[in-house]
């Protein structure tokens, strides 16, 4: 016992030199936010339309569809996976939701049930991806590449490749509605980001997600059920896809099966990466993803306002992703 006490006194003196913190270079951690601010200032200077409230809410609304998915995607990527099927999944859930709505008829009841069903379906499709990667032991990239194709083809088959239009009169109020002057999808995006942040930073599950992504073997030896965690991240992204599908389909009150959600996976992954989450897994933040999504949205908006050919917009987006990844690479050094 006395030995323990002695250790204590000793460590006090010897650790004194280590109290001086290594000043951790934090500017790099703030890079996404700095980039966003710079972008806002540049945009405001480049176009007088940019800062008009209606334009800003529009940008945010546009961002929220992929942004919501990007939040779920952040979990998957931190855990070391990836989900390429989200775009097709949006279309599939969207089509199914509208079929359900039309089956149930008009009224708020139908809307409520349909939204609940959308979340459940999204989670279920996510669970399929989760099972393929954990039980089926197929890498996430390949498994979700396959389901991406499957979900899209099912969407086209179910809808007979025709536009699906909802008969419900209340449904458009969801995606097209406002609350305190801000579109509902934006509220949802912010709200989910907040909830996601709490889960990732302040719950055991979130901690486990990071541990699994950082080193699955260490996680296993730390009594973490790695497969369960991995599986659940796919369920989470599926759930966010379900919500995004509701927002998207209710805004237009319809879904066109061929191009709903097209390239959403790219935008979602890009938002995550621009937000500073490492594709290698193990670390990342949700506020980074929010900023990443907004950066992408503003770039799109500016290119439109400045009349840049839509065909060139992909190039710009690609360059931004490259810059983000290069910066990340530097940070890891």
């Amino acid at each position, binding site marked *: *016992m006395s030995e*323990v006490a002695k*250790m204590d006194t000793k*460590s006090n003196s010897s650790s004194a030199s280590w109290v001086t913190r290594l000043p951790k270079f934090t500017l790099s951690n703030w890079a996404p936010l700095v980039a966003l601010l710079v972008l806002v200032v540049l945009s405001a200077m480049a176009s007088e339309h940019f800062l008009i409230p209606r334009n800003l809410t529009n940008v945010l609304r546009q961002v929220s569809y992929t942004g919501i998915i990007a939040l779920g995607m952040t979990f998957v990527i931190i855990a070391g996976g990836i989900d390429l099927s989200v775009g097709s999944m949006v279309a599939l859930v969207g089509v199914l939701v509208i079929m359900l709505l039309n089956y149930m008829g008009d009224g708020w009841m139908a809307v409520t049930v349909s939204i609940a069903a959308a979340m459940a379906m999204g989670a279920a499709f996510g669970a399929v991806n989760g099972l393929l990667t954990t039980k089926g032991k197929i890498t996430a990239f390949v498994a979700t590449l396959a389901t991406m194709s499957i979900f899209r083809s099912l969407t086209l088959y179910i809808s007979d490749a025709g536009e699906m239009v909802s008969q419900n009169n209340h449904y458009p109020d969801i995606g097209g509605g406002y609350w305190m002057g801000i579109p509902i999808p934006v509220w949802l995006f912010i709200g989910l980001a907040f909830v996601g942040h709490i889960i990732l930073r302040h719950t055991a599950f979130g901690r486990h997600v*990071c541990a699994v992504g*950082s080193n699955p073997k260490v996680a296993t030896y*730390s*009594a973490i059920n790695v497969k369960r965690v991995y599986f659940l991240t796919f369920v989470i992204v599926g759930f966010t896809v379900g919500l995004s599908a509701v927002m998207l389909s209710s805004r237009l009150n319809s879904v066109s099966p061929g191009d709903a959600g097209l390239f959403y996976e790219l935008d979602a992954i890009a938002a995550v990466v621009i937000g500073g989450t490492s594709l290698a897994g193990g670390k990342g933040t949700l506020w980074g993803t929010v900023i990443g999504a907004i950066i992408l949205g503003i770039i799109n908006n500016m290119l439109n306002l400045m009349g840049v050919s839509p065909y060139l917009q992909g190039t710009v987006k690609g360059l931004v992703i490259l810059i983000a990844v290069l910066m990340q690479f530097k940070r890891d050094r």
Partner: protein
Amino acid sequence: MSLPEPILSLEKISKSFSGVQVLHAISVQVNAGEVMGILGENGAGKSTLLKIISGIYQRSSGQVLVAGEAVEITSPSDAKALGIAMIPQEFNLIASLSVFENIFLGQELKGRLLLNKKAMRQRTHQLLNLLETQLSPDALIEELSVAEKQMVEIAKALVNEARILIMDEPTTVLTSQEVEVLFKLIDKLKAQGVTILFISHKLKEVKQLCDRLIILRDGELISVVQVSEINEQDMARKMVGRELNQVFPPRSQVQSKVALKVENLAVKNLLSNISFEVRQGEVLGFAGLIGSGRTETAEAIMGLRRRQTGDIYVQQQAVQIHNIKDAVKYGLAYLSEDRQGCGLTMNFNLPENISLISLNNYSKGFINHAQTREKAQQYVRKFDIKAASLDTELLYLSGGNQQKVYLSKWMDTQPQVLILDEPTRGVDVNTKKEIYHFVQSMTEQGLAVVVISSDMEELIGLAHRVLVMREGQIQGELRDQDINEQQIMFLAAGLQSQAAPLSTTLQENHQ
């Protein structure tokens, strides 16, 4: 030896990491063909110094001279060009590649068009033969034990026939047999004029192997001495800066209650017929050569390996352990020998690592961060963990300090049975002592401890009983006065010895 000329001179080498100075103006000359030992506590700066020589880190100031010429070593390939090779403390192997692919990584032998795999395999085979291991050049790294990985790292450093060979704790995971082989090899290299820089926390080894010693403390050069002029006691004193006595505490009283009992454990192709028990307050040692199945036994108990047969009783209750989560639930803890690969999440900070297994104790829905930090701070104090701050990622801790964090992580689960696999791997003498005393204080409180160790002294100093394994079976049991190096070696090598065969001692137990 007439006036040896220095092959390597360090002049006032200093190094800081983001403002914290870890090396203070180190000046040393190393002669051609000598074995220079480097001693120091965990975090003293040994690895940092040698990483500067091998181009992994850049010095902040000072000068390096190789064979009298000032050189700039800005990358490992510069070092290679100068004939400097390093066996790193933390393995640097690619898990999905084979042994020979790792050894020739970045310097593949090429035929006219394609890789010359045959030549690479052959050369690898030669090197492994030199090290007297049975490893196949085609074995995948991810399937190797820690000791085997160490052998691959050694072979990798040998492939270029360097004239300065740096070894950062190459023996921590090796058993005495393999160490013997390594030392023979070092003697051979030395005779060929190769200079060797050798870090180890095993003072006996250092005494046996080295010609001279550099002793560092807190980044300062304390002294450079001839090994013949210093004994182990003095080495320890110089490292720590004060007297160090009674490394091993007196053993605790073994209580009557059996804490863990394993019956007839078998794992396909690896283990058969493993039966033993540990009582509360007892320290049970496991000895054996590499590949004898000690780690596998622990992993099978913890539910990390599929058991063919085997019953496990914790506190006299039969328990079903299907996975490590079950094991933790029943109060079992297992500190793996592979802290890098299985132990620590390198991009987590101290509290995040320490609370990872015991997280439920800190979270009722949400994690109580303040509490995890407070607890981490307690362990930092208890084990004298040297880190810039609690928020430092584990990556930036010295090897020995990582080990202490790992121990904290498992202690935080408040286990009833603690299985330690090479618990003092890479830990300095002073901390070893602290860990031994800590283990003792825990056994006083009724903890049962299983120690798997390649360090004979550790087993002899700590254990009440030692089981010696060989080829997946328990070869014999030694207790009290019978626990000595010779007996352990006898059993480990499968030789008949004076030791009581297992069956009779077991019978005694059950009387």
